[in-house]
């Protein structure tokens, strides 16, 4: 998984993995989770290709659940590889955020001085 960037595909994949890690979830629930956490309004046209990418990479595994009403739902769960990817991605994310925080703090301090 690409974790080199704070934005874009790498971080979206990481956030989706994290949302799924909270419990098996279907696409719409994942989008709702990300939106509730202030991570943006991820449209279906972006979300489902990302889920397909993760499925193709073996990081998530789907299963179909027949609901009481409406069409069946496709639920996603993390695989062992997905958990590893999430852990590695989270570490990379923290390192990037720490670095960005230091950079911004130094810049602000320099401006204040």
């Amino acid at each position, binding site marked *: 998984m690409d974790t080199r960037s704070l934005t874009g595909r790498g971080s979206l994949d990481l956030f989706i993995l994290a949302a799924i890690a909270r419990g098996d979830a279907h696409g719409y629930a994942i989008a709702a989770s990300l939106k509730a956490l202030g991570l943006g309004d991820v449209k279906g046209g972006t979300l489902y*290709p990302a889920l397909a990418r993760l499925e193709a990479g073996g990081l998530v595994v789907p299963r179909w659940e027949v609901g009481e009403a409406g069409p069946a739902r496709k639920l996603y769960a993390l695989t062992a590889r997905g958990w590893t990817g999430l852990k590695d991605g989270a570490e990379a994310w923290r390192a990037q955020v720490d670095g960005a925080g230091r950079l911004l703090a130094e810049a602000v301090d320099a401006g204040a001085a």
Partner: protein
Amino acid sequence: MSAADDYLSELRRQLAARYWPTPRVRDAVDEARRHLHETGEAPVDAFGQPADYADALDAAWRPRDRPLPVRVVAAIAVALLAGAAGTLVGGLLAMEGGLEGSVEVPVVQPVALAAACFVPVVITRVRRRSGGTKAFLIAAALIGGVAGVVGGVLQSLGVGLQLSAPLAIVLACTCVLASIGIGALFFGAPWRSRRRAHRSPGGSR
């Protein structure tokens, strides 16, 4: 039909045009249907135009579907077949007997090599696909491959392979078809983007 039904129908067609296996097409369409059911969003607002959405989904799977070694092997097969067809045509042009005569086939070994390259690859693909156009392309490839193998075996057994002119023409055409078919299967059909542009109903939405 509702706008959602129209959209999902077109999405199904777009994914099938990208040679997706039928179960995966069904999954993607069902998932989109469920999303629209839950959100109440307009299809194009949620997913974009069907062709664009199909492209995005296809890109998510494609690198896994067509790993580099498969592409390299397929490229070798295409090159060998194209070369074999060219040699056959050249042999026919140089032949003096017209359609009544026969030709020593100088292309048996390259065709056999091509068959050895692509038959297992194509068989792998057949298991994951269905549909008329795809079946035709695969059949063309398989026929070319089988012809090559048969020719190779005959030659290795010391059986001289004298082909009548009409049969040689058929074999040459099969090689060309097989080259086009294999090329389309593994490197993208050249007519695909044009067909997508014509068929997409998204533009009317």
